[in-house]
Each structure stands twice: as C-alpha cells, then as structure tokens.
C-alpha cells in the first residue's frame, strides 16, 4: 500500500491513466481535425462539379439571391449566403426553416449564375469536420460533451507530461529509432509531444472555448437571469428581430448594403480591403425582414467574427452596428486560431503538420504503453489482445476508413440508391464498415497486422488519385496547369501518404515481432 507519492510520480500516474482512457478517442478527434484544415479542399475533391477556377467577372449578389428566391421552399424563413472566397470560387447558399431546420446547400457558378448540381456527398465539411467536433452524435449535444471531456483530458495530459521528465531539454532532440522498440517509440512520443506543446495546448483550449455555451449553459446565463438567447447575443453580438407576420416581399439591394459595410469596416482595418463573407436574409417575405452582414473569417487577420451589421430588408435602414469589445476580440483571436480560415497558406500547412504530429504523438503514446505493459507481464493475456486490437483499429482503422470514404466517393455513380440509403449515406456506411473491418482484422491476425494495414493504407492512398484521374480527367499535371491547386494538393498528399505508408510497412516488422 502506497502512502506517499512524489509529485512527479503522481503526475506520471495521472498522465498514464488519462492517456489510456481517452487516447483512442483523442486520436480520432485529432485525425479528423487535421483533415478538417483542408475540409473545403476535400469537398472539391469529392464533388468535382465544384472544381471551378476563380473568375474576375462575378455576377451580383442581388442576382444570385433572386435566383435562389425563385426556388424557395414553403417553410423557409431565412436564406444564408456565402460568397466566393480564395478557397471556394462558387456561391454557396441554403435556406433555413423554423426550429433549426437547415435545407440542402445550393451552389451557383459565379460567372454564369447557373446552379451547379454536385453529386451527393457529405465530403469534408459535413462529415469529417462534424466527426471532429461532435463525433456525429447529435442527441442533446452528447458528441460535443464527449469531445469536450476528451479535450479537458488532453489539457491534463499536456500539463502532466511536462512534469514526468527529469531532463526535458536534453531529451527534447533525442530520437533513437535503432534502439529497442519501446525506447524509440517513447522517444518519438516525447519529441512530437514537446516540440509542439504550446500549439497543442492552444489548439485544445481554443477548441473548448468555441462551444463554451454548450459546456457552461447555466453559468453563462446566470448574469442575465437565465435568458439563454440574451446570453448568446451578449457573447456573439446580434439582435432579436421577430417576424411581424405581415407580408412584404420587397428587398432592397443587398449589394449596396455590402458596400456600405465593407466601407465602414475597411476604415476599422486601416483602409485594407475588406470582404463580407456571411450574409443572412431573415424573416423572408415578412414586413420585418432583415439582412445580417458579418465578417466571420477575415482574410488578413486571425480574429474572426468581430463585426456585424443588420439592415432592414425593405427599407435598407441600418438597424444594428456592432464591433466586438476588447475581451471578445481576444476570444475571437483564440477561436480564429482554431478555425484556420484566414488566407495564409504557409500557416495552414504548418497547422496541418502540427495536427499530424499530434496524431503521431497520441499513437506512439498508446503503442508505447501497450508494449511496456506487455513486457512487464511477460505473456499475452486476453486483455492485451483487446488493447492491441483497439489500438490498431483506432490508429490504422481510422486512416483506412478515411481512405475508403474517399474511394467510395469516386467509385459510386452520381445517382445511386441502395436499400433506401442515398449516395452520401453509402459513403458514410463504407467509412464505418471499413473501420469495423480493421478492428476485426486486428483481432484475428496478430503477427502481421501492422504491416498488412500499412500496406492496405498505401494501396488505398495511391488508388484515390488514380480514380480521380479516371473519373474526372483531372490528374496532377492538369490541375496544376488549370490552377486548381486544391485538387493538386489533395492528390499530392495522397501520393505522399502512400509512400510513407509503404516505408512504414517495410520497417514495421519489428512492431509485430516485438
């Protein structure tokens, strides 16, 4: 019976226990988050109809809105518009109904004004990104809570890790791959962990701050006597405008409103060019219709969501002019740091690499613990087989499932239905099926699992760009020529992943035999 722990030992214990409890979950969240850095690019890879180079001549907002209003469904109350930006050159629009109902998205060609009909797919923005922040569990925000729990655990892991080392600085640069597997895995875990510790801490903290109203529903509304919507408005700006239930279809020129907003906000930004990137027309067809303009993801700064203007729809009168206060501005910077939507490609790639190193850190941590445990106990008990299966299933399986998701997207025809599953649902089904298969594979083939799954990953990763070429005619040389850098980048990353997977497969015999 232990009576006293030294500080370092208690830190190590917390680190280990916390790590094994949430490590697998953290890997999935980190992996999906890393991919989400390029979610728009993944969308364009998976929905080739959206691969349109940016154009100089654009049709006007009012024109686009009128085209949308022509196909307005009966129950639609508001219309959201996302104009073209440096990553996506199409207009993206969708209607909203009452009680949080969101209608499917529509895309409009910025030059011709025609609707684009992409193949049905959830893609990066609607599947991978959602897996990242709420694991696709939407019942009462359960997914967000689980991710939040994992995030707090991660903060704990990061802090405790600093205290488990005796010689942090000397160990910092040490990586000894030729030594015993346990030692080299630990080295890699330490290296990837320490080198980006501030990054991981800020990414996780900012990830917690983004849905803070979900995490602290009571605490953030006590000040306003329990009024949740007042709390939302205080934290994010805005104004509650209820419909008057009097019909009035007049809508003043929104282009003019956008110009006014951009002019005013440009002055706030030392005269730099400014772009309104989120427009919502609310209370459609009503006397109290309004147009809300926001600058959520500014191009040239990290801060997001600092300015907001609301105009009356039928008269064009300015109803609300908001610029965030100092503390909310700081929080916007922190949130912006997590969302990475500003126009700064070197930074975006560094974030991507940081995310990947985080995945390596989590994976090596799990592998190291598993090996150390097995070594300590000598033989292989059932519990070790289960842990081994889960580890491989999570690490290799998640990667493999993502690959399967991409491949299915290229293999399925544009309209397909199978037992009432539509195309996007079939892609998701493939993802989960491959994941399950990976677990089963890991459970039954103990000796050569790592190598086999690595080879499978390599095969999938190299097939994807080939299928892309076959089904869309876009190969890396052509996309580079056409200026479709998103597709080029995606194909390149896939090819590189295949190469890395093969290298790992060749060197991985030690994992299986150790």
């Amino acid at each position, binding site marked *: 019976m232990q009576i006293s722990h030294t500080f370092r030992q208690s830190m190590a214990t917390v680190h280990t226990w916390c790590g094994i409890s949430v490590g697998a979950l953290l890997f999935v969240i980190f992996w999906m988050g890393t991919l989400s850095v390029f979610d728009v690019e993944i969308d364009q890879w998976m929905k080739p109809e959206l691969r349109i180079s940016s154009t100089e001549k654009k049709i006007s907002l009012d024109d686009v809105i009128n085209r949308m209003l022509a196909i307005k469904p009966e129950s639609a109350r508001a219309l959201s518009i996302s104009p073209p930006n440096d990553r996506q050159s199409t207009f993206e629009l969708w209607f909203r109904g009452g009680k949080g109902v969101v209608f499917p998205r529509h895309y409009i060609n910025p030059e011709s004004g025609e609707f684009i009909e992409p193949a049905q797919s959830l893609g990066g923005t609607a599947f991978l990104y959602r897996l990242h922040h709420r694991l696709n569990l939407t019942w009462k925000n359960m997914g967000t809570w689980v991710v939040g729990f994992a995030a707090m655990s991660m903060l704990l892991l990061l802090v405790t890790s600093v205290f488990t080392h005796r010689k942090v*600085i*000397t160990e*910092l*640069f*040490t*990586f*000894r*791959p030729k030594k015993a597997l346990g030692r080299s895995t630990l080295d890699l875990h330490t*290296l*990837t962990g*320490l*080198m*980006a510790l*501030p*990054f991981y801490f800020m990414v996780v903290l900012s990830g917690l701050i983004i849905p803070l109203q979900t995490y602290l529903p009571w605490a953030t509304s006590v000040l306003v006597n329990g009024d949740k919507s007042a709390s939302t408005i205080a934290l994010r700006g805005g104004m509650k405008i209820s419909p008057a239930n009097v019909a009035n279809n007049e809508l003043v020129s929104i282009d003019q409103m956008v110009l006014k907003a951009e002019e005013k906000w440009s002055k706030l930004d030392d005269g730099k060019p400014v772009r309104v990137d989120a427009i919502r027309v609310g209370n459609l067809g009503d006397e109290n219709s309004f147009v809300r303009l926001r600058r959520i993801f500014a191009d040239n*700064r*990290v*801060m997001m969501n600092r300015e907001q203007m609301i105009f009356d729809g039928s008269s064009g009168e300015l109803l609300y002019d908001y610029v965030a206060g100092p503390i909310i501005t700081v929080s916007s*910077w922190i949130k912006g*740091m997590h969302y990475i939507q500003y126009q*700064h490609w*070197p*930074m975006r790639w*560094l*974030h991507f*690499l*940081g995310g990947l*190193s985080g995945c390596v850190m989590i994976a090596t941590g799990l592998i190291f613990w598993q090996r150390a445990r097995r070594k300590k106990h000598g033989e292989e008990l059932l519990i070790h087989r289960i842990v081994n299966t889960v580890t491989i299933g999570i690490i290799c399986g998640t990667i493999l499932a993502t690959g399967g998701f991409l491949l299915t997207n290229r293999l399925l025809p544009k309209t397909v239905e199978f037992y009432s599953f539509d195309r996007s649902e079939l892609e998701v089904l493939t993802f989960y099926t491959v994941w399950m298969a990976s677990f089963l594979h890991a459970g039954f083939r103990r000796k050569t699992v790592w190598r086999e799954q690595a080879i499978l990953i390599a095969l999938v990763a190299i097939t994807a760009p080939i299928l892309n070429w076959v089904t869309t005619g876009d190969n890396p040389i052509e996309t580079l020529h056409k200026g479709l850098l998103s597709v080029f980048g995606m194909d390149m990353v896939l090819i590189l992943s295949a190469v890395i997977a093969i290298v790992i497969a060749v060197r991985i015999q030690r994992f299986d035999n150790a």
Partner: protein
Amino acid sequence: MFNELLIATALLLSVVGCGYYALSQHQHWKAVTKPSVLPLKQTRLQVFSLFALSTSLVLYIVEEGIEFALLLWPLSLGLGIFSVGMILTFRPTLLRILI
C-alpha cells in the same frame, strides 16, 4: 516573392536556432563532431541560438504582423525542433555546418 523569401529565411533561422541549442547539450555535441574537437562554451552556443530564434521572430512580426507572428513563430519553432531531432538521428554530421 520577397515575402516568401523572408518567411523561408525565418523558418530556416528557427531550424538553425534549434540546432545551436541542441549543440549546447554535451551529448549532442559529441554526436556531431569528431572526438578531438573541443566543445565551444555552452553559453556561447545558447547565445547564437537565442539570436537566431529572435531574428526569426522579428522577421515574422515585420513581414506578417503581430497577429500572425504570434502563431507562426511557435509553430516554426516546433518545426525546428523536429528537424534538428531528425538530423541528429539520421545525419548528425550535417550539423557541423553550424560550427
């Protein structure tokens, strides 16, 4: 073009700075140099390291503004640590260029 060059320089300086810091640790110095070479004073190497890393930060602030620099610099520092770690593992003699 000039902008990209400055960022590339700042990134390189991060790697160099981390390299000098690694060299200031005795075991890494031994791994890099021939046994007959006497080690430079640890503090001098750390000063070089500090100089390289601060110049990197200044370049980021000048070129990108404080908002982006605050994010870029720690990230490029991480890249520096990783690169130096990998160089020390696979081709330690490459770091002789710094001495």
